[in-house]
């Protein structure tokens, strides 16, 4: 745990968010479009093996943005494909992203039970 890790997380994470903000401000795309595009971009970078290099450099600066979701999907599919061939693409898809999706469903459901919409 060194301060350089935190500085890189701040710089890279912030930079990814700035790209999204600029796309939102200068075009008519909605956040849904931009986030979907980021996931696709993360998946492509993951397939090329580049996203892992970014994670090595930036740590949470690369794992926290939604693009890492695309990367994790691709990595899960590719790792299982190495073991089980084409079938592995199906079985390995959610191997690494299960945490994120499960957490989103569980916490989303519980929050919806506990809280009420405003207004």
């Amino acid at each position: 745990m060194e301060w350089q890790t935190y500085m890189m997380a701040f710089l890279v994470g912030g930079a990814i968010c700035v790209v999204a903000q600029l796309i939102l401000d200068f075009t008519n795309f909605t956040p849904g479009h931009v986030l979907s595009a980021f996931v696709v971009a993360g998946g492509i970078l993951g397939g090329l093996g580049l996203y892992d290099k970014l994670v090595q450099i930036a740590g949470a600066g690369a794992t926290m943005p939604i693009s890492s979701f695309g990367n994790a999907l691709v990595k899960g599919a590719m790792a299982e494909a190495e073991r089980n061939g084409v079938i592995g693409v199906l079985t390995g898809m959610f191997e690494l992203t299960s945490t994120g999706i499960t957490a989103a469903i569980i916490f989303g459901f519980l929050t919806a039970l506990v809280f009420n919409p405003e207004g």
Partner: protein
Amino acid sequence: MSRDPKKKPLTVDQKRYSELVNELVPKPLYLRNAIMAFVFGGVVCIIGQFFTDLYKISFKLSSTEAGNPAVATMIFLGALLTGLGLFDKIARYGGAGLSVPVTGFANSVVASALEFKREGLVFGVGSKMFMLAGSVITFGVVTAFVIGLIYAIFIL
């Protein structure tokens, strides 16, 4: 606004009106928004890095393994802030700095779930929860499927 060129040319009044509209419609504060997104996004990632290191040390995990509970923690925080009604207030300043990290994913899930709560637990919360976040999952999976297939067939 682009006008159909076949239509009649604008009258003087219409021209003045559209000039007036262009002046009055608020322009996004590009620089301010970009700086805020950078700072908020960076801070969210620093918090994520803190949890990654925390789990790494307390459970003796590798950096990659520690990323998973850290992401879950950030999703929990995003969900909680949304439930408390604070997420939108922070996101008003942070913009994409809050919606691009996984906190934004959690926010879209919880916001949809809460919005449709009055339609019941099954058809409201259960079905509509992924109304916004669903596209992220769909496009992520389609991308990963195509890339995985190319990898399995042509590269392995």
